[in-house]
């Protein structure tokens, strides 16, 4: 009789087939292949038992490793081994100021105390939320019968206090643990009082994330994850922290929160002093609320947290630490101050991207980030936050589709294409160091509809510059990619066929509408925005390095410019665009132009932004290059005049 083969398949049918295969080698019982036989019944039982064992073994083995674990409790248990504390829910934080008007003169003191856990109410998106302070503030008398506070930080949630000895566990090592029963906890808000009744909330123990520098007498507690999204709090067993004695009461107070739901709330009311009028001014709307950390995030961050050991040494450490602690941060870029212009040695420049287009974060947020980093950076390194820079892309999408397979109009196809670009930006870009891969975008455009025959994309990086009017700058813009160097500009050939590597949108200088571009020799020249007879106003306004894409302007000044910024376009050698260091890559709808062909005929060609000069390549068959120009800042118009670089070239872009 043949030796039974090992079970290599995990499902029932395969296991049964393997058993049948084995039974073929014997002659005593031949009915294994007929489902009605007694033999078949027994095979069913054996196969089911095999399947059952396989399933449990497979599942148990999967749950044994962080990479393959599927159950949250297993993942959290592995994270605990790595000394990683999965993020709990986070309360949204808002900053407000309070003004108290007391015309009746009921308040006699110079200061009004705003106690810890003072409540503020807000109604946001049809729901009511409660915000509370987490420390005591004061409002000082600033005028007769008027008291005003400084910035007050308030957090969404409700305070809970446990005072139950039933939740306490003293484990085999004699360590006292307190199980916190509510999974909606924000662990940042944990406060622990020992022998609270006797000392009236005075004997406070503070949270520590590591045993570094903790002595036997220090009043600290630690937090560890527990099952079902709950947390445990434990003490140092009189080695790494003082442990409360057996009969002391331990009171834990913490905040429970709704997570992200109150993000954006910006109108608050409060009434902590009766019979007076209290006006609340919002300095910063509620932000930073987050749900508890996802499984994928824990799997990704736990090993990294072990690597960096809660210290910010390399640039990656800053990124991981900040993203881990502050869930509102979408992307972080950190780099040495030596890379700044001018260099700032001994500093680390950090830019953060908070899911919006804001270049600057509020001082409050920056301070909280720096406070967090200060204890984790080497002594001689000073972290500071710099303005977040963006890189955009000027996209020209040419879509060709057939009417035989769809009833969609060109406008519908265009809307779908813009939607694809928007989603692509969110999914693949919207962070530092990201890369726009045109082939991937092209694939997604093809998937819009089966009627799409082909598509092509032309992309150019854009950097925006928002100078203050009538102020002199020496700005530098780094595209970080080699540029297509044009033939050197000559006065004899003029601008007719000239294709600059760098070109700006229009702005006003000395009462003239101008733009700047390179001259093919490495210089930036300022040129009048004159369709018929463009003139060079300033031949040496800066330099461009065609290898690195580094553009430097000298003594740049402007009187006005349309929109919120001057756009600088680059003509890069590579089709794919990579965001240079410290810039977040975004695709905006206003930078997207579409050219739609239906059954081979041009039917639509549109842009959402007519205020910038854009070099557009017309349909291949026309072989012309078009340039459209909107109104300048001086004229204030947005007429969108059309002219062609070569004669008879208007047909390709008639939509502008």
């Amino acid at each position, binding site marked *: 009789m043949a030796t039974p083969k090992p079970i290599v398949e995990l499902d029932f049918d395969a296991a049964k087939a393997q058993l049948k295969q084995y039974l073929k080698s014997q002659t005593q019982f031949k*009915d294994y292949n*007929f*489902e009605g036989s*007694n033999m078949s*019944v027994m095979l069913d039982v054996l196969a089911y038992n095999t*399947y059952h064992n396989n399933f449990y073994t497979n599942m148990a083995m999967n749950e044994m490793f962080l990479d393959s674990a599927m159950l949250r409790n297993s993942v959290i248990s592995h994270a605990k081994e790595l000394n990683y504390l999965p993020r709990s829910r986070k309360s949204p934080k808002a900053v407000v100021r309070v003004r108290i008007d007391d015309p009746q003169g009921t308040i006699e003191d110079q200061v009004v105390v705003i106690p810890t856990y003072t409540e503020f109410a807000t109604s946001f998106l049809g729901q009511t939320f409660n915000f509370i302070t987490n420390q005591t503030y004061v409002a000082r008398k600033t005028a007769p019968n008027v008291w005003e506070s400084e910035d007050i930080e308030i957090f969404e949630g409700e305070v809970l206090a446990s005072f139950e000895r039933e939740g306490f566990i003293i484990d085999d090592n004699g360590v006292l643990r307190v199980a916190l029963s509510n999974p909606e906890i924000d662990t940042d808000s944990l406060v622990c009082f020992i022998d609270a009744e006797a000392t009236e909330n005075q004997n406070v123990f503070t949270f520590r994330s590591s045993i570094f520098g903790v002595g036997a007498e220090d009043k600290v507690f630690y937090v560890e994850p527990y099952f079902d999204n709950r947390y445990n709090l434990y003490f140092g067993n009189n080695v790494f922290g003082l442990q409360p004695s057996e009969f002391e009461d331990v009171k834990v107070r913490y905040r429970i929160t709704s997570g992200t739901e109150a993000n954006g709330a910006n109108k608050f009311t409060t009434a902590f002093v009766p019979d007076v009028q209290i006006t609340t001014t919002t300095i910063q709307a509620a932000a930073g609320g987050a749900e508890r950390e996802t499984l994928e995030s824990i799997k990704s961050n736990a090993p990294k947290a072990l690597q960096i050991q809660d210290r910010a040494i390399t640039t990656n450490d800053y990124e991981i630490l900040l993203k881990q602690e502050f869930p509102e941060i979408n992307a972080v870029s950190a780099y040495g101050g030596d890379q700044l212009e001018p260099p700032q040695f001994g500093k680390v420049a950090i830019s953060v991207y908070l899911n919006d287009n804001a270049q600057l974060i509020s001082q409050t947020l920056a301070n909280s980030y720096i406070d967090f980093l200060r204890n984790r950076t080497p002594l001689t390194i000073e972290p500071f936050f710099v303005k977040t820079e963006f890189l955009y892309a000027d996209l020209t999408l040419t879509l060709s589709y057939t009417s035989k397979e769809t009833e969609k109009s060109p406008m519908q196809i265009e809307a779908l294409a813009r939607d694809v670009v928007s989603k692509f930006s969110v999914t693949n870009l919207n962070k530092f160091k990201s890369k726009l891969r045109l082939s991937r975008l092209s694939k997604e455009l093809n998937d819009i509809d089966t009627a799409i025959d082909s598509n092509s994309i032309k992309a150019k990086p854009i950097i925006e510059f928002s100078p203050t009017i009538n102020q002199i700058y020496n700005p530098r813009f780094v595209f970080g990619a080699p540029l297509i160097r044009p033939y050197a500009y000559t006065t004899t050939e003029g601008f007719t066929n000239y294709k600059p590597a760098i070109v700006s949108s229009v702005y006003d200088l000395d009462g003239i509408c101008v733009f700047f571009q390179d001259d093919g020799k490495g210089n930036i020249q300022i040129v009048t925005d004159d369709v018929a007879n463009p003139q060079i106003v300033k031949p040496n306004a800066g330099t461009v390095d065609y290898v690195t894409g580094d553009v430097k302007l000298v003594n740049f000044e402007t009187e006005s410019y349309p929109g919120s910024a001057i756009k600088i376009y680059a003509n890069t050698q590579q089709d794919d665009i990579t965001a240079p260091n410290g810039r977040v890559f975004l695709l905006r709808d206003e930078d997207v132009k579409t050219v739609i062909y239906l059954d081979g005929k041009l039917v639509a060609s549109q842009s959402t932004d007519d205020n910038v000069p854009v070099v557009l390549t017309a349909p291949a068959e026309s072989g012309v290059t078009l340039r459209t120009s909107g109104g300048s800042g001086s004229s204030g118009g947005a007429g969108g005049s059309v002219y062609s670089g070569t004669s008879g070239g208007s047909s390709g872009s008639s939509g502008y």
Partner: protein
Amino acid sequence: MTLNVFTPTQKKISLYSDFKKDLEVNLLTDDVSVLRDEDSVKEAIRNLLMTDRGERLKQPNLGAGLRQLLFENMIPSTFELIKERVKSTLEIYEPRADIIDITVSGSLDEGSVFVNIVFFINNREQPITLDVILERTR
């Protein structure tokens, strides 16, 4: 001319063999008793007819599902339905039995349904008859 003479010592080759449902031991060989050929097929058919659909692990369609029909009215259409189910079940799951005839009758007094199946199996010239009595058990 040489004649083949069968003697009792020559062993008949059986095409089908199965053990008994209760794993009965043969007292002579001290091994598990074996059902062979005709008996084996009869046992398999009986098993199939007594099995309800969904009863066997991971094989939800196996079985004739006759039990629920035993609570229907004892009328010719019910018998016809039982006959159809028996026929289709055997065609699918018992390819060894070449069905000749199926007769279904009932006894109101006993509350039983009698299924008579006549079939051929390979390697046997005579048709085989199998009677299965289906009873409601409470």
